[in-house]
């Protein structure tokens, strides 16, 4: 009997040593995991999660500094998929998160635009074109509907329209 006990204990000890060594010396490849998490996010780059874009949010999730329920455009589906991937519990969408937006794109009223470039500089996907003091316009096909261009506009000439 003692032989068996010693053998099993020995194996357990050895495995423990190997595993603890591995976990210290070979950390999981965070970049790959961040890319995987990023893959599940909707890529609207709307910054509603409090991070400047989907990839930074993905990095924050992987490093443990952010919850997985901060993405309103992704909704509960995305929370569920993230929970599946990361082995965490699916939680309802955070109360602080704004309501999920319908599919929409921004439209500049070109008659009112004064060419201040404020909206152009905040667009996370470079979907606004226009030079200083000239009319701006939005590349509808590239717009993700993040609404980040609305607050900086000094003349309120941007509105959201339903996506075609």
């Amino acid at each position, binding site marked *: 009997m003692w032989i068996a006990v010693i053998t099993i204990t020995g194996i357990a000890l050895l495995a423990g040593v190997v595993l603890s060594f591995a976990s210290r010396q070979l950390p999981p490849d965070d970049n790959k995991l961040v890319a995987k998490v*990023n893959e599940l996010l*909707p*890529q*609207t*780059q709307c910054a509603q999660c409090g991070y400047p*874009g*989907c*990839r930074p949010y993905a990095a924050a999730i992987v490093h443990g500094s952010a919850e997985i329920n901060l993405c309103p455009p992704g909704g509960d589906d995305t929370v569920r998929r993230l929970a599946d991937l990361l082995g965490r519990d699916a939680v309802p969408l955070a109360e602080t998160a704004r309501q999920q937006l319908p599919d929409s794109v921004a439209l500049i009223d070109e008659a009112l635009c004064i060419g201040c470039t404020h909206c152009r500089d905040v667009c*996370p*996907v*470079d*979907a606004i074109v226009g030079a200083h003091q000239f009319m701006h316009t939005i590349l509808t096909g*590239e717009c*993700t509907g993040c609404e980040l261009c609305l607050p900086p506009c000094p003349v309120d000439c941007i509105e959201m329209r339903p996506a075609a």
Partner: protein
Amino acid sequence: MSAPTFDLGTVHGGLRLPILKDESTAQVIQHVPVPAQLVLPLAQHAGQPAHPVVSIGERVLKGQLIADADGIISAPVHASSSGKVIAIEQWPVSRRFGENAPCIVIECDGQDRVVHLAEDIVSFEQQSPDVLFQKILYGGIVGLGGAVFPTAHKLMEATTESLEHLIINGVECEPFISCDDMLMREHATGVVVGAQILLHALRLDHCYIAVESDKPEAIHALSDALTELQDDRIAIKQIPTIYPSGAEDQVVQLVTRKEVPTGGLPLDVGCLVQNVGTAAAVYDWICKGQPLISRVTTVTGDGVAAPMNVLARIGTTVADVVNFVGGYTERANQLIIGGPMTGRSVTTDRVPLVKATNCILVLSEPPSIGVERPCIRCGDCAQVCPVSLLPQQLFWYACADNEAKLRSYGLTDCIECGCCDLVCPSHIPLTADFRIAKLRMRELADEKARAERAKQRFESRTVRLEREQLQRAQELLRQKEVVKNAGPKAIEEILERSKTRKDED
């Protein structure tokens, strides 16, 4: 010519449905007179809708181009009679998604004056394939079997592959519909010459005309035409009368015994399929100079007074066509454009007859569907599926919105024939569910593509911003360096200069 061969090729599944075609084949094709008004939708074909080239108030002649092809996959539309364009507006049409579509409305003058053709008609043998392709494109000819894919584009695609056979599809397997049958009976020469033109354009020397075995009159007429024209490149092939043996891939399989691969085209097994109506339309255009402005349509069902096949101008409203055959009976209850299996029920007879309209079916009572019950996994649907899919599994995954599984179980290969619906003992509307699931799959794919693009743009923006910041920092360093090298004297000079400028202000 070769004698008609009788060969019951094999294809998985399928159903023997009641034929119900005798009423409409009892008399010859009748010509519907010029209606008071023609409604010509801009999108009568697969691909980009045509764009109008006439304006409101303009007088047009029969055969005149009124909307031109837009983009690579598109087809022009021609006026079906002479008259005046009175509107270009939204009009109810019969199609799968959406109710209204832009149409050109022509008020006919009843004189039916024909537009003068710019060029003389020359024998097709003297024309090069490229010229023929261009002409077929200008003639507004599209596949009349139902998919209405622009014929010229299909032919041009086919020339790039290793093509062996042309198959002229005369298999009309859906109950009630008999327009192709009547066309073959009465215009067999047109069909055969159309096939010859296509063979010439494709530089091919082998063609099958596939006809169901229950159409002896059509086979007889085609044999006579072949004997007369002395063409041994064309052979008639009989096909068993099983629904849906007339679907493109199934015809290929029945004729050549080669299965079209999943996600592929008949071209992948060296075949090109064209409907008999398309062949006849090619003949009318190339040999007689008449573009695709009319077609044979079956008007049938127990809701019309006198079921028959009619030759009607494209754009004639369904109401006008039904009036011509004696109007509705008292029992008329449901109007379907297309056949009972794949057609679409419409709520108004103001819809126009379009290039794709092969049947106007008026039924006295909608087919009783029965209450939908849970799937009992009997597998009957898998037995009848002509593409050997597993509808019960697909239904399962469609309910769960499991895109990956739907893809791996071949949902995209479903031809929406409706066989599984018909045999399902639980009355599950499988085909409708699959249509929705297909749409959903396409949506998801679009969403994914958009997300991927947004991700790339965001990342390249991040890279750009970092680069700009770095450049700014370097520039600042460089300037600091410059000032440092110039020494304290230079700094004093600069301060002095800025002070004097301020004083001037």
